[in-house]
């Protein structure tokens, strides 16, 4: 259903994404890994059409996406929700309003200017929040929430779009292990229960292994690995991260168990 054909993005001399090509034929949960600067964010941004591709094509259900303009492009964006590392909410507005931003594409500009949304949308927004376990926060300002809660609001906004694809750009990078787990669990549940495709940039191997059905590894803009999580050996990981023999997975780990352990050590010491 989603097909990338040598998708390329150049910034001046620099090629951030270099002829990325892959096909996804059914909704799955896909993790993209690679070290900082590998081109993961750029790839997702092209998919959401936040930025234009320099070359190549994106096809979704046979339709060419990368050349859409204006209203058509926005319509695509509304079907392809995006979640950001820094949540990218409107901090001064309340949680429900933030979730309702997911409906902007469908609503008339005029009504939304005055913050007028139909009641059914408001109810739906609160139900989605409830599904993510943060319904009580509904009337609060987004900025008053913790990081993990804000990220769940962002997910709620994405769900509000009722999208076919959810893109998540390092959704847990600025969260502590506890919240990271909650957020990843939520994404996985959405994938499983709603059958939506989820593509997530992740910077830790074990998260990718644990939550994804398929892992794509990028290095210097090129896709250097594409396979099942179990194919992702330490050797392959070294290739992706370009690390030497001293590469230790634990250094990038955010799993709770490992850290809990060291915490305990601290307390016991």
């Amino acid at each position, binding site marked *: 259903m989603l097909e990338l054909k040598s998708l390329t993005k150049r910034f001046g001399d620099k090629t951030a994404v270099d002829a990325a090509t892959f096909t996804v034929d059914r909704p799955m949960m896909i993790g993209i890994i690679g070290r900082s600067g590998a081109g993961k964010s750029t790839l997702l941004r092209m998919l959401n059409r936040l930025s234009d591709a320099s070359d190549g094509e994106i096809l979704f259900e046979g339709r060419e996406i990368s050349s859409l303009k204006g209203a058509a492009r926005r319509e695509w964006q509304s079907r392809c929700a995006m979640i950001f590392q820094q949540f990218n909410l409107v901090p001064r507005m309340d949680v*429900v309003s933030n979730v309702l931003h997911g409906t902007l594409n469908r609503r008339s500009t005029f009504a939304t200017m*005055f*913050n*007028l949304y139909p*009641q059914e949308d*408001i*109810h739906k927004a*609160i*139900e989605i929040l*409830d599904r993510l376990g943060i*319904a*009580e926060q*509904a*009337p609060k300002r987004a900025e008053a929430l913790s990081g993990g809660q804000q990220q769940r609001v962002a997910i709620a906004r994405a769900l509000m779009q009722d999208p076919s694809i959810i893109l998540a750009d390092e959704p847990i990078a600025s969260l502590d292990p506890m919240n990271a787990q909650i957020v990843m669990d939520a994404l996985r549940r959405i994938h499983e229960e709603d059958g939506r495709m989820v593509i997530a940039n992740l910077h830790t191997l074990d998260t990718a292994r644990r939550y994804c059905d398929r892992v794509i590894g990028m290095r210097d803009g090129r896709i250097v690995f594409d396979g099942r999580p179990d194919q992702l050996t330490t050797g392959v990981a070294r290739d992706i991260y370009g690390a030497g023999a001293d590469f230790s997975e634990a250094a990038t780990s955010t799993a709770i168990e490992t850290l809990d352990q060291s915490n305990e050590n601290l307390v016991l010491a």
Partner: protein
Amino acid sequence: MTDATLAAAQQRQTVDSIQNSYMAQVQRRRLYGGLTLLIFVVLMVSGFNVADDRNAGGFWDGLHQIGDYPAEVLAEAWEKRADLPALIVEFFPALVETINIAAVSTLIGAAAGLILSLLSTRGLARWPRLIPVFRRSMDIMRAVPEIVIALVLIFVLAGGPVPAMIAIAIHTAGALGKMFSEVAENADLKPVEGLASTGANWSQRMWLGVLPQVAPNYLSYALLRFEINIRASAILGFVGAGGLGYELRNAMAWGPGRFDEAAAIFILLFGTIVFFDQISSRYRNRLTEGQNA
């Protein structure tokens, strides 16, 4: 099983109540928002009507004439464009006077504002009990329009730059004093306490403990004030306190025949204001950025 449905029902209930209370909140917000907007619009519209009504000419009648006066000035200035450079040179001393008034009053006002701000900031004040006194006096200094002081002083000191200078300095002291004390309130008190513990006196504590912290912000505000004061000194000239503004008013009031002078003075004044505006905004950016860096 029953447990599960019960839990689900309970869940449903809480969601319902959240939805209801949120909807109520939204209704309230829409109501208040709508009311505020309505009041604002009513105030604006009726205010405009009152102003329009009490004005000699109506807004809509006059709109098409808006360019008449500038057109006359420009036409004459263009006709006599050859004289412009000479006129600019002729009025240059008046410009210097205007800038001097602004500079002196900014310096004096900033110095007074600096002391007032320290005296009226909690945690720094020399005499904490007198804080309200200093605050009120700054409020008053800020509230008196410069023109009032200048016009009154003219009777005592006669015309010339000094009344204008004093008037602007007083206002500057009040205005900067307030801004300065807002900055000083956020100053870190640890160094001050550290100095106090060595037996330093109040002025030493302020000089070493507070000023280095607040200097960039103070300087940036003072620059902004300087720019405002150039304007103010031109305006005071307008009502008879010397400098470029006075020349400009004379030329404009005289009407045709001296519009070339008006144009020359205007070019000087406008150029000066823009010049200092640019300089000060550049330095201010540098100062505040340098601090964040």
